[in-house]
């Protein structure tokens, strides 16, 4: 299970090298595992996750940075994976929705989304949950107005918004940790 706070302090050395434009070997660290993809440098982190690494929990809603469905954590920061090139994530820790539960036990935020019916079609949900957990850790969930503002980067066309706020409130009020360390 991934600790949001701990990830933020991960070292992230960058090395300027020229690779591409053809396919290159890209080494990623996703959900605690080393993964290698043979991809062109133009491949987004989102497409690398979904199409190359079979991690389809992260969703593609617009591919333009407008909906939030593709939200993942890179070195413990909320990132729109559709606007991030996979190759720039080498030597960084990528965390996706698939890493949030511990075995069969849901992360408290996942459980709260389920219990509060904070989704309908579920397509925006992984992104909502990745944002929600992060906002809790960042301390942006003081009241409903603040939650509403900070969660407005994640569109839910089913409009489960009041229930999304309820789920976040519940985890906040139960003293649930923003990270998954509980």
């Amino acid at each position, binding site marked *: 299970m991934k600790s949001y706070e701990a990830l933020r302090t991960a070292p992230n050395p960058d090395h300027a090298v020229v690779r591409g434009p053809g396919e290159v070997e890209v080494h990623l660290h996703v959900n605690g595992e080393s993964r290698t993809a043979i991809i*062109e440098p*133009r*491949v987004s982190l989102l*497409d690398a996750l*979904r*199409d190359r690494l*079979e*991690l*389809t*929990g*992260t*969703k*593609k*809603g*617009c*591919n*333009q*940075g*407008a*909906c939030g*469905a593709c939200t993942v954590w890179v070195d413990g920061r909320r990132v729109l994976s559709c606007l991030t090139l996979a190759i720039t994530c080498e030597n960084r820790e990528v965390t996706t*929705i*698939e890493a949030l*539960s511990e075995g069969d036990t*849901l992360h408290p935020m*996942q*459980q709260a*989304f*389920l*219990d509060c*019916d904070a*989704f*309908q*079609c*579920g*397509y*925006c*949900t*992984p992104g909502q*949950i990745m944002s929600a957990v992060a906002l809790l850790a960042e301390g942006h969930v003081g009241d*409903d*107005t603040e*939650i*509403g*503002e900070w*969660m*407005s*980067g*994640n*569109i*839910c*066309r*089913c*409009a*489960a*918004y*009041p*229930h*999304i*706020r309820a789920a976040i409130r519940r985890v906040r009020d139960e003293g649930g940790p923003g990270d998954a360390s509980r």
Partner: protein
Amino acid sequence: MSPAIGATLNRVDGRFKVRGESRYSAEVPVPNLTHAVVVNAKIASGRITAIDTSEAERAEGVLAVLTHRNLSPVATVPKLLPSLAGLAAPGQSFFPMQDETIHYAGQPVAIVVADTIERADHAGTLIRFEYAPTPATTLLDQARDQAYVPERIFGGLLPGHASRGDVAKALAEAEVCVDTTYRFAPNHHNPIEPSASTAVWEDADRLTVYDSTQGPNSVQFTLAELLGLPPISIRVVSHAVGGSFGSKAMVWHHPALAALAARHVGRPVRLVLTREQMFTSCGHREEQEQRITLAAGADGRITALRHHKLSLTSPFDDWAEPSLQSPSVAYTSPNYEGIYHLVRGNTITPTFTRAPGEATGMFALECAMDELAERIGVDPLELRLRNYSATDPESGKPWSSSGLTECYQRAAELFGWHGRDPRPRSRREGQWLIGTGMASALYPVTQPVNPQRARARLYNDGTAVVEAGVSEFGTGVFTAMTQVAADGLGIPVERVRFVGGSSDLPNVTAAVGSAGTSAVGSAVHLATTQLRDELIRRAVADDHSPLRGADPAAVQVRDGKMVLRDRPDVGETYADLMHRTFMPDVEVLGTWNPPPQDAGYGVHTFGAQMAEVAVDADLGVVRVRRMVGVFAPGRVLNRKTAHSQLMGGMLWGLGQALLEATRMDPRMGRWANASLGDYLVPVNADAPDVVVDTIEVHDEVVNPLGMKGVGEIGVVGVAAAIANAVHHATGRRQYELPITLEKLL
């Protein structure tokens, strides 16, 4: 064991969704997969005069570049027919890429197939087209003089005009008359999951398509006609669908294009529409205006309603969303005239958009009612009560069930409506002008035409699998069906697994028109209760059963145990009976034959909406502070999921009222804001907490469980309630949606 129906069960597919494990159509792993990208026409009208595909064909990873010149033609182009009819259901009576003619901007003109999505995408930009454009019509204002009245609309299912009584006479004699015209911007559905099809040919006449759809069987039948294959050759699978709102209710071009492309390259093809393509590939709510003329006596009793609609349709179909239907029966009105006027333009055929027609038609009527209330000095709620119709004003027949007056009453209590100061601009908090408004909500109960089927199989350990071809796009239908099946069989929900989402399963209609859950629910109810009765029959006929010789009608099932109703200690479990008699399982196919639409009753769903807004006196910004919606949707299968749908619908109404508009650039004939950054939908900060309540009305007419549907009624009336609240706050009537702030400056 308390009944499962009505309980607040968490979604049965919820765990998968919060863990990111549900496989939506573009996520099903397929070996040897290739990726297709559609290229769209940049002009709105004209012809392709030249195409150069050479550079695209040479690009790395490209397997095929298909245009009308080398794409194998479709076998037949079926006519538009709403998918509720249960047959082939193309979104328009036109299929692209058959010749060089361009009818609308965004029409598919080429498909590129490559080994990766990036390469397909890039190669698509390398195709060069030359066009000979012709003048295009893309706005109502460009061609209102060419309007015509269609004989029928909506795939031929509804008349283009209707009347009763003598409207002209009633208007001439009216003591009060409200005559107003409302304009509506086009709207796009924008589900967060873009439409996606993955086509896999197992051999020359066996095709599987993973498709995001409201009706796997509709896709199967439509593909069969387009591809010239028998339905047995086509399997359509839809495990999970990421929202639809009407965009996936009809069958558009992408599944067939994916299938044709896959056949061409001899490999599976995945075709996912881009967000921009979602604005030109699966219909929209059309640009329209509606004129309402309300005649009334000085007491506010309506004597005539005239309702005319003018809207833009495609070159192919007489499509208008049916805006006049619900308003025509909302209130007693002895004299009525409703007419659709259409203008043909260069557009894809518009389509169902959540509360298709009701959202706009009831906006017009309910704003006019508010104006009438103000004119005669009567409380808006009181005006509705004075005009309440206890029978269907169109047919004179009784309602199968109503509950509308209870909805008004409950909404007024929850909202605190009574004691409202009716004067505009009577409440102010700092720079905010506060206003409240209300509206009625109506949505028709539309019956599927064909038998609806579901299969129930009980295993000898007492667990059951129940199947029907319905897809789950957020309605909660898999959860509700689990509950219906559990009650039908008399076993706990944990022992039921509902399986849907494939055309191989028993045929149910596409889940459209708020009728999906009732259609499949009726079939599941019949299948499971018939299975239960079958086992009771076997038990009472079995010499070794403690129930031998009992009257089957005296036996009930609780927690998987068949017992005598008045002696619950006498009986045995399904499992005991089945083990003893060597039955591995028992299976029943349940068939529900829907009653005819006109079965001696008026059938509608009713509700009441109330909203409070705050309008910035200087800037014109409108914030919705709270909303109350009370509905009478018949039997509620799952309180939690049903309330979620109603709540989502109400927030859709908020979007319709204040935010949503697709803007046409008439010079180019293209949408100017085809993205989620530019087409505004409600975000979290826009959405107030919403109070939803339901009045349970008993309805024995509509279907065996008395369900009337919750998918769309939540939208209806919200925009009017908000517009009326804006008037109450500011004193300014709103005649155009969305109510953007410049209208309040």
